[in-house]
């Protein structure tokens, strides 16, 4: 018995030793030293700025405005083709994309998610300057509208004879995580509403001269782009007019044109995405795909050389790398900012809106404002600069001027489509065998297979099988 008691004592001692080292659930809490819990992430207006930066940063990804969204549009036109040097953009340039491609679907909705965190925030409850908070919220509305607009252009059925647009997401982690596609009309309405909201929330007090953030009139500039795309000419005219009347922006002069792409925040820039020497996409950048021997897949088609009249300063954007015709001076460096919307586009939007509203004379004035600023000053002072202006405002001339002005910036493809034009085969080097007629199913991108897998409410575009 005595021994038994002693045994119990020993066992007890040892058990206590064990318990001394015992640990409980709270010992297992992981450190969180470089992230915040979401509930702690938006406590002040300055936190809102950080999340807005997050949305803008997502726009700079190579899958979106950092490269792919601009290049995919550009290589589908008669401006450029893919030589396949690194195997990139052959699929896009050949209109051979399949549902397995996710393209910018995920990037754009990730931008929208960041914007929705801000839009869903009750600014009044935060610390800090509420006006600034509302302005940031306005920026978020404009970003949300632009991302949805890009999605609608890419995936919507407006050029393939359907009525479906894309899901318009207004809530971060909302109730419905298997949304259906809405109609094109409903998308347009939401986009215009968001832009109106953005315009109303943003304040001129926070005008950003670096152009790397959104200012009040960025919303109207976007609005003019959206309205032109869908032929809503009155809205386009009114929105463009407000931007013009703001007096914040100027057309870049012929002398500064080429150089302006190497500079940040120039006078003609309305909104651009920031890249820098320390924050850029390196080998996945636009400059890397337009030039160089490592990638350099996107080459300029020969017909572009004949696009510009002698003396047009924009011809200097072109150049040769060995025997290859290249875009040499748009996105000249990996760290060059990427313009999203320039004042020249607003001018042309305004002019084209006037033309379509029956004011052809007025429209010509606005159309010619661009070529008037694009003729080189001749070396010989006795010589007159070339006359690049148009004698008549027509849709064709607007289209031509826009192609010349915005070449390599990814806008021409949308201009062709909105004018119900085909993608012509004009050069042997183009990646397409023959002309892609307007209405062809490939003018709408396939909804990604991974989206269809995860969301049975989603409907594929015609022509892509599953």
């Amino acid at each position, binding site marked *: 018995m005595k021994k038994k008691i002693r045994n119990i004592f*020993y*066992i007890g001692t*040892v058990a206590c*030793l*064990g318990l001394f*080292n*015992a*640990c409980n*659930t709270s010992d*297992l*809490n*992981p450190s*969180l030293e*470089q*992230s*915040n*819990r*979401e*509930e702690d*992430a938006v406590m002040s207006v300055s936190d809102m700025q950080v*999340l807005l*930066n*997050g949305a*803008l*940063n*997502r726009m700079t990804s190579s899958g979106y405005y950092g490269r792919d969204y601009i290049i995919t549009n550009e290589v589908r036109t008669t401006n450029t083709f893919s030589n396949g*040097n690194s*195997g990139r953009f*052959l*699929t896009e340039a*050949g209109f*051979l994309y399949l549902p*397995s491609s*996710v393209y910018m679907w*995920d990037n754009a909705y990730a931008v929208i998610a960041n914007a*929705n965190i801000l839009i869903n925030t009750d600014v009044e409850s935060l610390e800090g300057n509420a006006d600034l908070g509302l302005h940031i919220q306005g920026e978020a509305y404009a970003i949300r509208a632009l991302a949805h607009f890009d999605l609608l252009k890419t995936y919507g059925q407006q050029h393939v004879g359907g009525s479906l647009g894309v899901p318009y*997401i207004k809530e971060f*982690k909302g109730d419905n*995580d*298997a*949304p259906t596609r809405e109609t094109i009309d409903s998308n347009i309405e939401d986009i215009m509403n968001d832009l109106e909201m953005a315009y109303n929330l943003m304040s001129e007090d926070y005008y950003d001269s670096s152009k*790397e953030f959104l200012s009040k009139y960025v919303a109207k500039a976007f609005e003019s782009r959206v309205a032109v795309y869908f032929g809503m000419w009155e809205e386009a005219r009114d929105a463009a007019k407000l931007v013009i009347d703001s007096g914040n922006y100027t057309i870049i002069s012929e002398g500064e044109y080429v150089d302006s792409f190497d500079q940040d925040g120039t006078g003609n820039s309305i909104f651009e995405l*920031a890249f*820098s020497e*320390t924050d850029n996409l390196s080998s996945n950048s636009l400059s890397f795909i337009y030039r160089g*021997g*490592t990638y350099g897949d996107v080459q300029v088609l020969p017909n572009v050389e004949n696009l510009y009249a002698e003396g047009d300063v924009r011809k200097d954007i072109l150049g040769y790398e060995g*025997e290859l015709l290249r875009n040499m001076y748009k996105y000249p460096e990996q760290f060059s900012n990427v313009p999203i919307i320039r004042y020249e586009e607003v001018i042309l939007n305004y002019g084209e809106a006037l033309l379509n509203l029956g004011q052809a004379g007025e429209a010509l004035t606005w159309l010619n404002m661009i070529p008037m600023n694009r003729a080189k000053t001749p070396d010989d002072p006795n010589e007159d600069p070339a006359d690049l202006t148009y004698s008549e405002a027509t849709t064709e001339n607007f289209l031509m001027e826009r192609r010349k002005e915005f070449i390599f910036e990814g806008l021409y493809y949308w201009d062709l489509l909105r004018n119900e034009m085909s993608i012509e085969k004009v050069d042997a*080097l183009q990646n397409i065998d023959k002309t892609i007629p307007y209405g062809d199913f490939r003018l709408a991108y396939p909804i*990604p297979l*991974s*989206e269809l*897998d*995860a*969301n*049975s409410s*989603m409907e594929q575009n015609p022509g*892509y*099988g*599953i």
Partner: protein
Amino acid sequence: MKKTLHGLLTLFMVLVVQLVFAQEKTITGTVVDEDGLPLPGVNVIEKGTNNGVQTDFDGEYSISVSQRATLVFSYVGFASQEIKVGSSSTINATMVVDAAALDEVVVMGYVSKKREDMTGSAVQISNETLQQTPAASVDQALQGKVAGLQISSTSGTPGSTQDIRIRGISSINAGNDPLYVINGVPVVNDNLSQDNNGNSLGSSTVSPLASLNSNDIESITVLKDASATAAYGARGANGVIVITTKSGKAGKTTINVSSYYGFTNNAIDGPQPLTGAQRETLYYEGIYNDYGAEYGFSRDEAKQFYEDNLGVFGRSYLDWNEQGRPEGNWFKAVQNEDAPMQEHVISATGGGEDHNFYASLGYYDQEATVIGASFDRISGSLNFTKDISENFKFSTANTASHLYQNGILEGSAYFSSPHTAKYFMSPLDQPYNEDGSINLDTGLPNPIFITRNDVDETKLTRILSNNSISWQTPIDNLSFTSRFSVDYQVYNYKTYNNRILGDGSETDGDGYVISRNTATYVFQNSLDYGLYFGNHNFDLKILQEFQKFRRNYIDASGNNFAVDGLTNLAVAGNPTGAYSDFTDWAVASYLGTLSYNFDSRYVLNGTYRREGNSRFASDRRWGDFWSVGAAWNLHREEFLKGSDFVNNLKLRASYGKTGNANINVNQYQVLVNYDANYAGAGAGYPPQYGNPDLTWETSRTFDAGIEFGLFQNRLTGSFAYYKRESRDLLLDVPLSMTTGFSSQFRNIGRMENQGFEVELNGNIVRSEDFNISLGGNLGTVKNEVLEVSKDLNGVEVPVTNSSTSYQRSASGTMVNEWFMPTWAGVDPDTGVDTWYTDASRDEITSNYNNAQRVYQGSSALPKFTAGLNFHVDFKGFFVDANGYYAGGNKVYESWHLYLNQTNGYISSVYNGYSTLMNRWQEPGDITRVSKMSNGGEPWRYNTKYLYDGDFIRLRNVTVGYDFKPQILEPIGLTGARLYVRGMNLYTWVKDDNLQHDPEVDATGFTSITTPPIKSVVLGVNLKF
């Protein structure tokens, strides 16, 4: 069990004891087996001392002992016997085969068990077997040795990781790697070559196991079923690999020296690239096919058409012809033929009555089979055990090592990798200029220049220290052990792209470095209690464990380097990035395990473990895991006792629940991250959906088997059946990307693995100086996904493999089953590829877009694996051979778009394989290779490039000679061995169309980067 351990310990001591004591009496005698044949190598020990000898080749021994001594005779496979020394000075003994025969003690991590007392499935591999595979990383030696264990090299680069799967795949998205345990302590064994997010770097992988010297390892045990893994149940769902390092052996200090030196080459040659002339032929044919009809020229006029349209086609072929058609042999230019490998180890072991030690120093050095990559390691270890007092024992095991890997970019088809260069470089480009200098004017950056001027290196210093103190309490058979272990790793990675050519040329050179320190601590306290009365034997263990992992991570980058040849960031003019973070995780557990046997006849085992893991929210953190097992040793029963035929016969079964928490940290939380920036300011974004309900993935395993030993254990073997159902899978459920996220971790889904395992070993000839043995193992695995998630509409969401969208998992399929359109051959009339439109295979289309993806009924996971071992020895000469088979799976050829299709990539940009010369040329041609065109093509994954993965590999062959003691004694040696060892000398591949090495990593894609190697080494072992 304790007794066995003690016996073994004594046995070990005796092996090395050479001490001569002052004697009182000398005993001599002969030891024979039941047939009267002399038994050499029998241990004869004076009981209770370190005094002992071994019998010689005639079974004779001579030992000086005290008058009242007892002699203990022991020999593996025989029952040991004790004989009291009497008046006679001659003691002869007859050894009787032990019924239990293999009193092998299986080290299972926390506990060690006699094989008889086991109810689960485990395979133990000795140091000698491990030594048969000369490799940087010890896990490579497991291939073919364990039924149900699949292992494949992810890369032939020395020191890189291996993919190991035990009994299939239990998880879709959580890890499938087994848990590694070193000396009773779980260790982290992730690929070291990772960035802060755990994503693999582009360069060679680095296995932490490569820091261990395989000579220091006593044994590796692979635990397969729930009963065996039970102690690690919480993390044991993928199996457990238990590594035990050598401990000291008391007695006179013995020194072992082992060295080998040899050469390595790629295990198989792989596809041959096209020559320039072949490529040119295809190019002109492509022009004819593309433009001939439209522009009205004939096949023979294609060359002329090319020369007439240089503006469109470029001048490359014209220039090449003008230069005299020189063939650029890149294959040869990047090869490091007969790359040397060597290893040298010296170790010592010894000790006295109350202490013993093992110490070693090792050096390993290996070059890769291409230029620019190598691996070396220097390692040291010191293991020491000391009886502090009668009841306290202190034990420590320490390893320190430094490894250096000069790696290469191999994570993808990097142009800068010398391996990929032999296929991607155009044969029209020359490696060298005529003056012998490196040609810098090549289509892709010249890899010879790149490997000489770029840097890609990993340095790892690892210190592993395991210390314990045990107290034999005053209560009989109750002991307490406290253990502390630390695994400290300092990892440095540096990459540099030179200023002149390649990826760094645009930015005047760029550099990137990572510095990462990790420390993993483990605290363990355990109580062992044994209760033995009558035939009832109870062994109880209670254990408490806490493991904490801490990681400090820093990386930095810069470009615009000031000068050539200096590659550190100090020389970078423009710093481009700086980042640091700290992460940790912790695991706490409580374990109880009870073993009971009745007369060693009936065995019952039970284990319970409760474990908490910081990867889950506080209310979901803890999981309960358990197992029960039973075994019946029939040979202990009266009706088999003394049977000549059956020496060992055991039936066993077990069932249990194990877990898996192998996901990234903090997945359950809803977070905002700030490791992004915009316009020079910090940027926040939500990195993951988060799920506070996240908890353990569990598996339930049933395992039953029979083990037997027949004819004096000349034939031994086992048969096992297992079935494992995994539930509440940690599934990365695909989300609609409209949420802003692509997936969310949830506990959804079920999966099942089942199969059979057979092991058979026969001693065909067993005699004094001639032995032949043959053994083999076979494992099968049948995998089926039973359930995955559903979306809001109740429609099942198939899970696409995160690494490739051509592998999917849905209910009824295998996990990551191949999912792609089915190829229907090349149309003999038109020469184009065709595909079946759907699974019915009724209709054929030449439009890939009209071909549905279908499940292919196969996955990358081999359904069968087998190993075959052969041993013969004759008068000191011996041959060991070991083969490995894996099959029943399919593997996919990576990069076929750029290298193995009749398109512009192979004729104008890169280069193709010579098999493309079999292309379709005219109507009626029957061939696998379609018509040549110089156009571009998009990726079209289809079964044309999905091959049978079956292969047989002669894993290793060793031919050697053990010198006779008679020869060695005069020169002061106690043992010497000379051998030649070959690894992967022969490979058989079932599918003729599979040109690449069939041994691919777990993703199932062939590699053009670094294939497995074959080696031949000459080695010597000396003992004195």
